[in-house]
C-alpha cells in the first residue's frame, strides 16, 4: 500500500475520557489531533495520539441531543485549541476546558456550521 501504519481505534465512554487521556499522557504519548465527524444522529469524536511513530486513537460517540464532553486539557493542555474548535464548529459543550473562548475561537457568520446538513445548502 501507499502507506501502511496500524491505526487502532479504541471506543470509550465519555465519562472515562479524562482518565484515559491521563493514561496516554503518563505512558508518554503526545496529542496529535482531535476531530469530530457529523453523523445522522450522532457525533463521533476521535482523539489521536503518537508515541515513537505508533499512532493510536480513542473514540467517543455522542448523541446529538446530549453533546457534552469533559475536557482533556487537565492532561494535555494543547487540547484547548481542538476543544474550542469542537465547540465552535460542532456545538459540543466542553466542560472544565482550561482556556475557553466560549464560542469565539472562530469568527463565523453562522453558529456551528459543521452541523448544518448538506441538503440545506450550507456546504
Amino acid at each position, binding site marked *: *500500500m*501507499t*502507506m*501502511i*501504519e496500524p*491505526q487502532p481505534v479504541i471506543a470509550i465512554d465519555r465519562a472515562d475520557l479524562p482518565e484515559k487521556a491521563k493514561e496516554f*499522557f503518563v505512558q508518554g504519548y*503526545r*496529542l*496529535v*489531533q482531535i*476531530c469530530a*465527524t*457529523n453523523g445522522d444522529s450522532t457525533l463521533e469524536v*476521535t482523539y*489521536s495520539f503518537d508515541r515513537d*511513530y505508533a*499512532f493510536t*486513537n480513542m473514540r467517543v460517540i455522542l448523541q446529538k441531543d446530549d453533546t457534552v464532553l469533559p475536557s482533556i486539557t487537565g492532561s*494535555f*493542555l*494543547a487540547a*484547548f*485549541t481542538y476543544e474550542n474548535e469542537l465547540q*465552535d464548529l460542532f456545538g459540543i459543550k466542553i466542560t472544565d476546558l482550561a*482556556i475557553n*473562548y466560549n464560542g*469565539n*475561537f*472562530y*469568527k*463565523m457568520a453562522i453558529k456551528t*456550521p*459543521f452541523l448544518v446538513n*448538506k441538503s440545506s445548502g*450550507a*456546504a
Partner: protein
Amino acid sequence: MGTRTIIPFGPQHPVLPEPIHLDLVLEDEKVVEALPSVGFVHRGLERLAEVKDFHELVYVAERICGICSFIHGQGYCQGVETLLNIEVPARAKYLRTIWAELSRIHSHILWLGLFADAFGFESLFMHCWRVREKIVDIIEATAGGRVIFGSCKVGGARRDIPNDVLKGIKAELTTIEAEYNELKPTFLHDNSVKRRTVGIGTLSKEQAYALGAVGPTLRGSGVASDLRTLGYAAYKDLQWEPVVEHGGDCYSRTVVRVREVTMSFDLIRQAIDKIPEGPVDVKVTGNPTGEFFSRLEQPRGEVVYYVKGNNTKFLERFRIRTPTFANIAPLVVMLKGCELPDVPVIVLTIDPCISCTER
C-alpha cells in the same frame, strides 16, 4: 509586581502577513501571558468534500496553502489511495518526493528571508528570496505552476519529469546550493542574528513534546521526530536522518531549518539518482471506503489528513490538522517571560501559516 498592561498584537502587524492576534499581558516590557486568537478568516474547506468528488478534492487540498501546496495534495492523495487499496507506481512516489523536497527548500528559504526581515536584516531577506526564486523556477518548469503544482492526483502523478530534465535539475541544484551556502554562515554565526535569537523564546524538550509541538519547533527542542521516518513516498529508499537541535530557542529552530534545506538538496539528488522507469499513475476504480489518518512531514511539521469514505464518490469526512494549529499551544509557552520586542521574532519561529490554520 509592576503595572500590567494588555497590548494587542495583530491581526494586522508588519511581521505577520496573515491574521493572527495575540493579547499580550505585560509587566513593564516583559510578557507574563499571551492569549492567541485565530479564526478571523475560517474558510470551512473541509466541508467541500460534500460537494466535490474525491478526485476533484485534491485541487481543494492543494489550495489550503500557497507555500506547502504540493504536500497538502500529496497527503490527501495518500489517504484516499489507502482507502482505495491502491499501490502507486514507484516512479510516482519518487516524483512526489522530489516535488515535496523542492517545496521544503522554497518554504524554508522563504521563511529564512521573512525571519531576516523581522529583525531588520533587509539585505539578507533579499538574498534569501533571490535564491528561493530559482527553486520556484524549477517548480514551474516541472509542474507548470509556481504556487499550485497540480501534479498530484489520486493514483499517482499527473505528469512525469523526463530523465534529461531531472539531470538538468541536479546540475542546477548544485549551483543553487552553492549560492545558499553563502547565506548559511550569516544565520549560523552572525553576531547580530545570534543576539536576536540565542536564548530567546525557549521551549524545553519536555514542554515541546507535552504541548504537541511539531516540525522544526519540536526538533529545535531536541526531539527527533520527523514523519518522513514512516517511509511514505520514496523516503524509505533514501538515506537521511531527522535534523535535531537542542537549544529550544529561536536560534535552534532557525538552525534546524537551515540544515534541513541542505538535507533536502541531498534528498532530491538521491531521488534523481534512484528514480525507476515506469508509469506514473494507475487506473483508479471504485469509491473510498473506511477511514485513515494520512500523516506527512510538511516544512512546518506534521500534517494530518483524516479521510473517511462511505463507498460513494463523496467523502463522509475530510479533516486536516495543520502544523501551525499544533504549534499554537507551544507558542503560548514560548512567549511567557520574553521581552515585548522579541514577540515578533518568537512568533515567526513557528513559521505560522494562518492560511493552513484557517482551512
